[in-house]
C-alpha cells in the first residue's frame, strides 16, 4: 500500500479555511479524505503537543472521517492510521490537516516528517494557504504568521474574491507573487473543480514532479538576473525576501548538497522554502529540489526537462537573510568545486 498523501490547510484567522475545507470535502475527491482539525481557535497545534487529550475518530454524515486534534498531531495521525487498520473507520486516501489561523505550519511539517511510523505511512503532499483578498495586504504586513503561511505554501487559495474588485484581486496576486513566486494562486470562488485545482497535482508526488516543476518554472522570471523581492518594514531579523538564483553552467551536485547541508545547519529556521531544478553533470534531466526549512524532500531525477531552458534555477524564500550573501555564497562554493577551479584554488 502506498503512502497516503497529507495536505496541510493553513491560513490566517478568518481567511476561510473551514469554508474551503467543507467545499473540498463535498467534492468527489474529498469523499475518501480523513480530516484532522485543530479546534482551538487561538492556539497553534505546536502548543498543544503536550496535552494528552486524544479524541476518537468519528465518521461524519458526509462520509469524511473527522478527528479533532486536541492533543498531539502525531498521536492524532497515528490513531487515525491505527483505526483504519483495525477496521474501525473506512479506508481513506487523503488526510487533510486544518490548522488554526495563528499556527506556524513548520512544526506540523516537522511532525509529519520526523516520526518514522508516520513517514512510512503518510506523505506530506502539499501545504495550502488560504488568503483573504479583502485583508491580505494588512495581514501580511502586520502579522508574521500570515506572511510565513503565505511564504511556505505550495498552493495559495484566494478567498472572498467575490467581495473584492478585480483590481484588488490583482494587487493581492502581485503581492503573493513576490512573497512566494513558486506557488500557484487559485481563485477559490471562480473554481468549479476546487479539489482538482488545489490538490490535483501534489507538490511532492514523485510521479508528478515534472508537472510540478513546470508549474514552478512558469512563475519564475526568465530574466537571467536574480529577482529580488523585499517586504517588511525594514531589514530586521524577521524581514522576508524571495529571490531566484540561476546557474548557466552545470552544478556539481555534491558541492551543492554540502553547501545546503551547512546552510540548513546554521540558518535552517531562516530558509523558509527552496524550490528548483539543477542541471547536474551526467544526467539527461534535471534534479528537482524542494525544501521547507530544514526538511528537504528526497531529490528527484526528472527524465527530461520540463521546458527548453537548461539552466539551473532555484527560488529561495528567506527570513532575516541577505539574498545577495546567500547567492554569492552558493555561487562561489559551487564554482570552487568545478574541476579547474578546485585545482587552481587547492580546495582541501
Amino acid at each position: 500500500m502506498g503512502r497516503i498523501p497529507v495536505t496541510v490547510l493553513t491560513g490566517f484567522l478568518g481567511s476561510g479555511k473551514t469554508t474551503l475545507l467543507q467545499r473540498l470535502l463535498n467534492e468527489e475527491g474529498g469523499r475518501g479524505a480523513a480530516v484532522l482539525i485543530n479546534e482551538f481557535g487561538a492556539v497553534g497545534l505546536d502548543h498543544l503537543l503536550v496535552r494528552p487529550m486524544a479524541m476518537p475518530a468519528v465518521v461524519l454524515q458526509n462520509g469524511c472521517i473527522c478527528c479533532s486534534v486536541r492533543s498531539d498531531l502525531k498521536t492524532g495521525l497515528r490513531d487515525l492510521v491505527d483505526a483504519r487498520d483495525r477496521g474501525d473507520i473506512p479506508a481513506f486516501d487523503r488526510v487533510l490537516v486544518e490548522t488554526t489561523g495563528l499556527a506556524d505550519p513548520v512544526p506540523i511539517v516537522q511532525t509529519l516528517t520526523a516520526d518514522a511510523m508516520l513517514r512510512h505511512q503518510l506523505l506530506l503532499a502539499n501545504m495550502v494557504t488560504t488568503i483573504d483578498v479583502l485583508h491580505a495586504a494588512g495581514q501580511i504586513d502586520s502579522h508574521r504568521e500570515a506572511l510565513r503561511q503565505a511564504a511556505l505554501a505550495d498552493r495559495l487559495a484566494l478567498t472572498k474574491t467575490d467581495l473584492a474588485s478585480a483590481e484588488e484581486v490583482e494587487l493581492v496576486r502581485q503581492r503573493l507573487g513576490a512573497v512566494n513566486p513558486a506557488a500557484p494562486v487559485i481563485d477559490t470562488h471562480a473554481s468549479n473543480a476546487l479539489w482538482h485545482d488545489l490538490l490535483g497535482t501534489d507538490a511532492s508526488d514523485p510521479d508528478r514532479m515534472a508537472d510540478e516543476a513546470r508549474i514552478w518554472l512558469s512563475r519564475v522570471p526568465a530574466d537571467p538576473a536574480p529577482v529580488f523581492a523585499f517586504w517588511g518594514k525594514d531589514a530586521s531579523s524577521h524581514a522576508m525576501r524571495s529571490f531566484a538564483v540561476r546557474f548557466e553552467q552545470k552544478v556539481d551536485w555534491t558541492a551543492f548538497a554540502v553547501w545546503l547541508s551547512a546552510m540548513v545547519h546554521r540558518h535552517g529556521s531562516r530558509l523558509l522554502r527552496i524550490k528548483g531544478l539543477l542541471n547536474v553533470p551526467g544526467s539527461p534531466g534535471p534534479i528537482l529540489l524542494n525544501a521547507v526549512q530544514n526538511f528537504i524532500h528526497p531529490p528527484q531525477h526528472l527524465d527530461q526537462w520540463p521546458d527548453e531552458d537548461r539552466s539551473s534555477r532555484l527560488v529561495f524564500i528567506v527570513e532575516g537573510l541577505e539574498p545577495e550573501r546567500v547567492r554569492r555564497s552558493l555561487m562561489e562554493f559551487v564554482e570552487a568545486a568545478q574541476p579547474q577551479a578546485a585545482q587552481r584554488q587547492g580546495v582541501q
Partner: protein
Amino acid sequence: MCGACGILAGTPDWVDGAGTRDGVERLAERHKRIKLVNSLLAPAGVRLRDFGGRLVLQSATGRTRIVTDLAHVWKAADEIGRREIDPLEGRG
C-alpha cells in the same frame, strides 16, 4: 535523522542525490565531499579526516569527535571549533 544525512553515513539519502552509484564512484564522491566539507570547516580550525571509513573531526587544539553524517559534522564542529560554521561567512 534529518535529510542532511547522506553518503557520509552510508545511507541512501538526499545528499547522495537521486540515482545509483557503484562502489568506486561512491568512494570518489565521499573523498570529494570531505574536501568540500573541509573548505567550510577551515575558518573554525577544524578538519575532517577519513580513517579507514571512520570519519573523525579534529580541531586545531587536538580535540576530536567521531562523526557519522553531514549534520553531525556541522554540529560537532560547532562544539570543538574556535567559531561556529557558517557558509555565509566565507571559507578557508
